[in-house]
């Protein structure tokens, strides 16, 4: 068990668990957190899971933990770990079952005042246009051959099909296409699950949310992103659906044997891994990239239908009902990137599980229009609280492998939330606050109650205080669709 005395305070926003804490640790754990958030996080096993993650072969630097951390499985949610490429390991459980779960933000010139009378209709239209719910299929059905193409092409596939604009593609992490995807490394079962689910939201904590841009903190960056105080924005939070879940399950299963073959000893079977230059590691990387590209397409198609919903409801009431893409980012992903570590540029695989890439200004991987301000970082809150738009910094490049937080982070268990919160009561409460809710399941809604999450403002103040992201705008929800 870890106590606060096991951590060394580096600053008001940064703590460290030294490598000497446990014999099998290969690197220290660096935690971006205030003392208050640290005490809150110590109620669950997030830090123990971070220590377990610090035992993976080939790690460099530190294992990092973001202030929205909470207990997951294997890695903690909010965990970042970099392994030396190609001889270090890749761990499917360190990326998660929902490969490339992420967030897309769309901005608009629609003022809240103008749209307010129609927000309930807008919630209904979004719910109708964007399929959601447990295991539900979507409006698109593709053949296996078409699915293979989609996995390789990513978002440009959606452009070819008329579901995207050039700007959408440019303003997506990696242009919505991660190279090296090989559908031949994806099981038939994953393909069977993936074919009917393109353009679907799913259930759980996934959502589509209409927000009011309540306050702008960096007017230049906001202007570059097309975000204007008092206007509406739209967030889409989802991932690779059953396709990604199956790919992760398949490889966590086959890697159980791989760790024995490579003589890797681990404290938790969910952390199974394989060297990236092994046949198993190469196969997983190729399959994971298929799921990543699938998820980019999934959010792209949902964005296309959300635009249709906006046009249908608001087109006749406002001058311009168009939603423009601000950015789309992953927060469950393994990426091969170059980072300066101990004064040396090194190629590494950055595992981000519940953590967002946050590249700073000047990075060549960013679209030209964002190169001066840094990469937009999207931090959704819970459905009743604020969300944030941030940008990556030079500090994030130096201290966190270009990463920052991904959300508010849970603090209350699901079992406690569903015991204490009645979904229908919560819906009424949120409606009373002017938030229009459409939810497939009241039981699911109660588990996702705002009270089950940390204070997102405290989380954002921490990453901002630590210097690994900078505030741009604060958004508040006005309509939420949940599966």
């Amino acid at each position, binding site marked *: 068990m870890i106590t606060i005395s096991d951590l060394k305070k580096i600053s008001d926003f940064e703590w460290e668990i030294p490598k000497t804490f446990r014999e099998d640790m290969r690197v220290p754990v660096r935690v971006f957190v205030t003392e208050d958030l640290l005490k809150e996080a110590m109620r*669950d096993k*997030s830090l123990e899971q971070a220590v377990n993650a610090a035992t993976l072969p080939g790690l460099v630097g530190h294992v990092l933990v973001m202030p929205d951390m*909470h*207990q*997951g*499985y*294997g890695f903690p*949610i909010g965990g970042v770990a970099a392994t030396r490429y190609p001889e270090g390991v890749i761990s499917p*459980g360190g990326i*998660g*079952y*929902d490969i490339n779960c992420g967030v897309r933000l769309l901005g608009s010139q629609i003022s809240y005042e103008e749209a307010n009378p129609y927000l309930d209709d807008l919630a209904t239209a979004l719910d109708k246009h964007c399929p959601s*719910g*447990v*295991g539900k299929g979507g409006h698109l059905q593709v053949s296996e051959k078409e699915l293979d193409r989609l996995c390789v092409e990513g978002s440009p596939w959606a452009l070819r099909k008329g579901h995207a604009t050039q700007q959408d593609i440019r303003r997506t992490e990696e242009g919505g296409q991660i190279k090296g995807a090989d559908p031949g490394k994806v099981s038939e*079962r994953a393909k*069977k*699950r993936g074919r009917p689910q393109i353009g679907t939201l*799913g*259930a*759980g904590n996934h959502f589509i949310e209409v927000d009011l841009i309540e306050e702008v903190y960096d007017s230049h960056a906001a202007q570059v992103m097309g975000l204007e105080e008092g206007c509406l924005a739209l967030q889409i939070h989802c991932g690779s659906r*059953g396709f990604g*879940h199956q790919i*992760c*399950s398949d490889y*966590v*299963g086959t890697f*159980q044997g791989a760790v024995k073959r490579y003589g890797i000893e681990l404290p*938790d*079977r*969910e952390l*199974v891994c394989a060297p990236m230059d092994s046949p198993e590691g190469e196969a997983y990387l190729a399959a994971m990239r298929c799921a990543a590209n699938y998820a980019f397409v999934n959010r792209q198609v949902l964005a296309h239908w959300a635009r249709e919903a906006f046009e249908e409801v608001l087109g006749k009431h406002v001058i311009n009902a168009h939603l423009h893409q601000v950015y789309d980012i992953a927060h469950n992903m393994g990426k091969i990137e170059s980072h300066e570590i101990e004064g040396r540029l090194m190629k590494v695989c950055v595992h981000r599980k519940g953590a967002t890439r946050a590249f700073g200004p000047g990075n060549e991987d960013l679209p030209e229009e964002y190169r001066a301000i840094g990469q937009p970082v999207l931090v959704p809150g819970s459905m009743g609280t604020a969300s944030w738009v941030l940008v990556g910094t030079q500090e994030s490049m130096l201290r966190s492998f270009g990463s920052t937080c991904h959300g508010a982070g*849970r*603090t*209350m*268990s*699901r*079992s*406690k939330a*569903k*015991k*204490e*919160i*009645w*979904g*229908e009561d919560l819906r009424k409460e949120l409606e009373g606050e002017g938030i229009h809710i459409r939810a*497939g*399941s*009241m*039981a*699911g809604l*109660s*588990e996702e109650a705002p009270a089950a999450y940390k204070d997102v403002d405290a989380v954002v103040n921490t990453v901002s205080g630590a210097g690994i992201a900078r505030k741009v705008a604060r958004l508040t929800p006005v309509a939420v669709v949940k*599966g």
Partner: protein
Amino acid sequence: MNSYYRREAAIGQENLVYTGDMDSREAGFRELEHTADWELYVWAPDLPALLEQAARGMYQLSHTRLADAPRLVREFELPFTDRESLLVDFLSELLFYGEEENLAFDEYQLDLDESSLRVRIVGAPIEDPAKEIKAVTYHRLAVRETGRGLEVQIVFDV
């Protein structure tokens, strides 16, 4: 337990209302606290019974209810390498039937030998699926022997 939760009759609902004397039963399950996901504690006299209880617990966690419809049978076989992998594979197979055919099961015939598990299950279409389970994880998964049989804790990614 709140009143809304009571209205969600699920497979294995009878297990949920046990409080004081739960552990005196020969086999059963109960939900454990987990911040982000769902965790289940399951116990039974032997491995087939443990698999059955885990399945019932998983269905209860996801509020899975069977429709009043003709009963359907499914049969499959899984390789037996170790107890934990068999548990993950068995529950994952049930989740796949749920997503692919919208089916869940409440009758289990499980025949285990040293190399495989033969499964015959009977169920019906799922009525109004309420909650999604993404995957069955290996996190801290260890089937332990106890004085009364076997026990395990399972974390589901949701």
